[in-house]
């Protein structure tokens, strides 16, 4: 059955037809979009571990689900990189079948509770919602996704997707971040014998080391990983493919395919004077210390700076995660320094809003040009260049141009969050692997197959720095393509 046939078949089930008749579209569109329940901004800016978004109640979710018009051609699905059957899960919420809704999510997504929290829905599914065309706010698809996934987890009745008969074909996955987990889930469903190799001591990749507890609690990631374990996926930590074991070791051990999802690597710096001073660090380092190593916990061995005046350089989600973490660790001033204006910021609107509510200061149209340290080599000041917006650049955003005017401000910690370059370990270790000038693995866009036929790749190691959901989309695409490839080569 094709996807459109499946959509049509499900849409014509008697309960769906009956549900559609219950309310007129006019009544549905008249319902205002639900507001997410949140922790109080003042309170949450001091609490490191409590999640900011509290989720929807049953009543809120069922009412919001009524807003969905159950379109015959659901354009929202085109906006979802993993192709979740959106109207089917939403209509299950509307009729109160929350566990059923969660099952629908799991058909195509290995990490629904994660996606419901961190996906930029406003740029994806929700941006294609029919309500937008009518000049109204989109159905809160992301909130509903989170609701269904959370309901299932909290109910204790966690469903495990159906597994096709095991085919005993061994597949290796390099990296346990969103791309790797999504691939592993899809391949396990197809009956493959999956082993995920992780370099760090924890499973989850960026979901663990990168995204903070207040946005994505680790225990939620662990539950999703546990579901994969129940599907038969094996996880091996502390094992670096290309270092601990080689490509030929994998072959000699009977692995027939390899999916490389080794993620982001080296943090980018600006190469300006003083950038190696003590107290200047990458957001990867800062967030890894706090999230993976739990450094802010007094019982943890890993140390962390708790700056009083913290500047975070950058305007993406990682910058927002860093600056909000700094506040929670006791910063009196936590400042976003961004060279363009707020309009050009790549961070989600919700993250910017949350940061502002919590008291983060925004210093836009400013760009650091030098850091100044004390005698111990600790950063104490930063020199900023004031910027103005010029003509649009290749990204379509207006290019920031220096005005020549400078300003020096006191700071005692700087977190540089201006992107990452791909992890160099695999590109250096696999002979014959096609690598781009940026250091990313070159893949066929339709299949995610690399220049080595049994090696597929996805996520940041291919994209160079993107979102959780795009990485998951790659994992799904690569799984389908590797399945086809292996079947055709039998």
């Amino acid at each position, binding site marked *: 059955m094709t996807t459109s046939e499946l959509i049509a078949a499900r849409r014509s089930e008697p309960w769906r037809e009956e549900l559609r008749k219950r309310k007129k579209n006019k009544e549905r569109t008249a319902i205002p979009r639900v507001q997410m329940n949140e922790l109080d901004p003042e309170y949450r800016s001091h609490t490191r571990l409590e999640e900011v978004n509290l989720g929807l109640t049953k009543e809120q979710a069922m009412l919001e689900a009524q807003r969905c018009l159950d379109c015959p051609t659901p354009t929202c699905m085109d906006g979802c990189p993993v192709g979740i059957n959106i109207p089917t899960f939403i209509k299950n919420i509307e009729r109160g079948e929350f566990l059923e809704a969660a099952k629908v999510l799991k058909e195509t997504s290995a990490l629904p509770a994660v996606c419901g929290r961190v996906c930029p829905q406003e740029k994806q599914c929700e941006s294609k919602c029919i309500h937008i065309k009518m000049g109204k706010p989109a159905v809160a698809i992301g909130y509903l996704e989170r609701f269904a996934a959370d309901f299932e987890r909290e109910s204790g009745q966690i469903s495990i997707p159906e597994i096709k008969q095991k085919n005993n074909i061994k597949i290796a996955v390099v990296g346990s971040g969103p791309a790797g987990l999504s691939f592993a889930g899809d391949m396990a469903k197809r009956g493959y014998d999956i082993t995920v190799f992780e370099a760090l001591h924890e499973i989850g990749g960026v979901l663990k080391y990168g995204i903070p507890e207040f946005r994505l609690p680790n225990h939620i990631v662990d539950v999703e990983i546990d579901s994969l374990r129940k599907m038969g996926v094996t996880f091996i930590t502390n094992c670096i493919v290309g270092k601990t*074991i080689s490509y030929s070791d994998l072959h000699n051990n009977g692995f027939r395919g390899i999916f490389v999802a080794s993620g982001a690597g*080296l943090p980018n710096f600006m190469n300006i004077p003083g950038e190696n001073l003590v107290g200047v*660090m990458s957001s990867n380092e800062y967030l*890894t210390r706090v999230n993976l190593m739990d450094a802010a916990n007094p019982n*943890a061995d890993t140390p962390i700076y708790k700056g009083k005046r913290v500047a975070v350089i950058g305007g993406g989600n990682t910058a927002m995660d860093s600056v909000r973490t700094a506040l929670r660790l006791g910063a009196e001033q936590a400042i976003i320094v961004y060279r363009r204006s707020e309009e050009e910021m790549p961070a989600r609107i919700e993250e910017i809003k949350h940061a502002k509510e919590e008291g983060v200061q925004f210093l836009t149209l400013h760009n650091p040009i030098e850091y100044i340290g004390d005698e111990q080599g600790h950063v104490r000041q930063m020199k900023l260049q004031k910027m103005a917006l010029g003509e649009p650049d290749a990204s379509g955003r207006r290019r920031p141009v220096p005005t020549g005017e400078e300003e020096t401000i006191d700071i005692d910690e700087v977190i540089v969050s201006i992107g990452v370059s791909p992890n160099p370990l695999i590109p250096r270790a696999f002979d014959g692997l096609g690598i781009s000038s940026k250091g990313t693995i070159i893949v066929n866009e339709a299949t995610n197959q690399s220049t080595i036929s049994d090696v597929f790749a996805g996520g940041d190691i291919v994209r160079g720095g993107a979102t959780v959901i795009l990485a998951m989309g790659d994992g799904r695409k690569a799984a389908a393509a590797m399945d086809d490839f292996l079947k055709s080569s039998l």
Partner: protein
Amino acid sequence: MNKIISKEHFSENVVKLEVEAPLIARSRKAGHFVIVRVGEKGERVPLTIAGADIQKGTITLVIQAVGKSSKKICSLNVGDYITDLVGPLGQATHIEKVGTVVCAGGGVGVAPLLPIVEAFHKAGNRVIVILAARTKELVILEKQMKENADEVIIMTDDGSYGEKGLVTNGIEKVIAREKVDLCVTIGPAIMMKFVSALTKKYDIPTVASLNTIMVDGTGMCGACRISVGGKTRFVCVDGPEFDAHQVDFDELLMRLNAYKGIENK
């Protein structure tokens, strides 16, 4: 989880551990390091590998108890487990026949120097080892070095063993009497700084193996960054060995002290 097979005290604060790690034992080369973590709230600490036994499936680590985490590692006994051990990491030492190689080690840096000495010797070089320590009790691996080198010179600060003087005095003595084609140095950053300054004066190519603060150790966090020839490099993936004459040792020393004071709290 990796089991500790044997433990030996080189001195009160310096411990040699033989740890079960069959995959690392097989894949490691001279110059590689591992990341070690002890306990669920433990820190990730980089340690350069001092040796391996493929048959036994073990690697050897030599640790000096200085901070919280190294003390924790040193307190482990035979039969205990290291919570997490990952590697081998970094670039292996570039080994080739160059002629005469002076290998200068200080403190526990002598331990990771051993596999490098072995490798250069095997490659047909004349290898002269200089072992430096504060005092006689802290001189380690003398016997193993003698088995793998053409000559071993021992320098102690207090003159209690070998000759009295610093590692640089030993190197200078060799330079004065014969042509040296390469110098390899591992030890405290301040020692390597002076070794580098000396060999630069004589224009002898020098490689230093750097041990910096790291978090992941796999090319992700950038905590290990240093300036080499004015460019920022990452010790974990570009190193740990660099052209010593290009390394900004003052910056390295400053960065090594980054968490001093915070850690002791």
